[in-house]
């Protein structure tokens, strides 16, 4: 583990440079044990690291680093919370998934085979971030990896299910985005009027279920 300053009010806690299940478990445990601690304002989990925003009026970098190290050490052996499995219904192709033909062309499979491979895999929510509950999913079959669009779309519809390089994700709100859209879910991952926790949380296992083709 390394801890270094990212700004005058944040530290970047890193568990290595390789995306792995082990690093993910450490990130998850760190978020669980540091959330709500006095002086710690916000946690930004990612694949192998957590950015910790602290209150510079209460802590300096040295104090924050010692506090974080002490808490992570005390929770080193904590069990992960029980796994949840969430099924996400998806309508593939057509207007809901305009990039499905491109993914088929890039991977050399038929569109039907892409859907089959995509729905047979089990995914893990590595973290939730970007803007508003976007789940970063690991577990995409490597043969489905497809590069992002060279120029992002200005408008990606809410619920779009997408492939971005070796990752998969779901757009929780309509936003710009550069991932390849292969389908859309009617499941609402984010409601601005509701208080999270969101539908998908870090560590959840996700299965996509085909609802038919649009």
């Amino acid at each position, binding site marked *: 583990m390394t801890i270094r300053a990212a700004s005058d009010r*944040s530290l970047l806690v890193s568990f290595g440079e390789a995306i792995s299940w082990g690093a993910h478990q450490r990130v998850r445990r760190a978020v669980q044990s540091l959330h709500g601690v006095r002086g710690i304002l916000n946690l930004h989990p990612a694949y192998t690291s957590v950015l910790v925003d602290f209150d510079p009026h209460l802590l300096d970098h040295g104090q924050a680093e010692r506090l974080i190290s002490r808490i992570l050490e005390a929770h080193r052996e904590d069990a992960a919370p029980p796994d949840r499995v969430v099924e996400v219904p998806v309508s593939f192709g057509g207007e809901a998934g305009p990039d499905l033909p491109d993914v088929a062309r890039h991977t050399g499979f038929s569109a039907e085979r892409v859907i089959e491979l995509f729905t047979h895999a089990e995914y893990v929510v590595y973290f939730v971030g970007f803007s508003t509950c976007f789940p970063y999913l690991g577990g995409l079959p490597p043969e489905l990896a497809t590069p992002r669009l060279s120029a992002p779309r200005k408008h990606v519809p809410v619920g779009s299910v997408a492939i971005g390089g070796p990752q998969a994700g779901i757009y929780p709100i309509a936003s710009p985005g550069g991932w390849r859209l292969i389908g859309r879910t009617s499941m609402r991952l984010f409601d601005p009027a509701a208080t999270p926790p969101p539908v998908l949380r870090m560590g959840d296992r996700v299965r996509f279920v085909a609802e038919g083709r649009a």
Partner: protein
Amino acid sequence: MIAPGFLTTVQDLGRFGWTHFGISASGAADALALRAANLLVGNAENAPALEMTLAGGEFQFEGDAVVALTGADFGAGLPLFTSMPVRSGQTLRYGPSRNGARAYLSVRGGLDVPMVMGSASVHVMTGVGGRPLRKGDVLAIGEAHVRRPRPPARNVPQYVPRTALRVTPGPQAAWFGGDLYLGSYAVSEESNRMGIRLKGPALANPGGHMITEGVPLGAIQVPPDGQPIVLFVEHQTTGGYPKPANVISADFWRLGQMRPRDEVRFERVTMEGAIELLREQEEWLYSL
């Protein structure tokens, strides 16, 4: 609300404890001016107040109130950084900005608006906390004042079109040389509460391998085109572009006051220097 202006929202000091769901703090773009506005009318410093952007609106009061106007001069024709009474039926009319980018209007007792996840701040891009104000909206004034209104502020911030932003090193500082500190940059029209886009000499982007990581407020990220973006109050919580530097906390308010085409330079300070500058800023707030 007779006219909303260009972009008028309810803001406080932000929503904390939700970035692990991808929801950044939001809050006032110039938190210093918002805090001053609240302290001057006798509110707690984080009370909900109005933030106006580039051009202000027109407001009619349906009851007597005590208000303070802080931040940039939007031509309301009233003294700034001063608490003052307004009478029932009186109209407050703002125009376009004459110096900075944002003006604040606080009301003694605070705005009585719903809290979402512990904050009244409107996150414009996602709709968390509500939406920008429209013509015909009516806002209730609360009773959450905590002391008597204060005398006018002295030594108030100056809003100028050429800004030096002080920075500390970012996580990928070693990837970049000192080019960031040589040139000056113009604030792009495409800037908003999510990020401030700068245009100027392209920074050589080393293009090393980087795994997406958490990004803090004020982070300067450099995409492949070499034009820096300063992450602002509605920023994404994670990002994959390298970051040579980070704007210091004591200069966050300057980010909120930069207008399109303003000129920006960057200056390095030490971490200790950054904290000292923040303490000095707090001293000014204690004087109110």
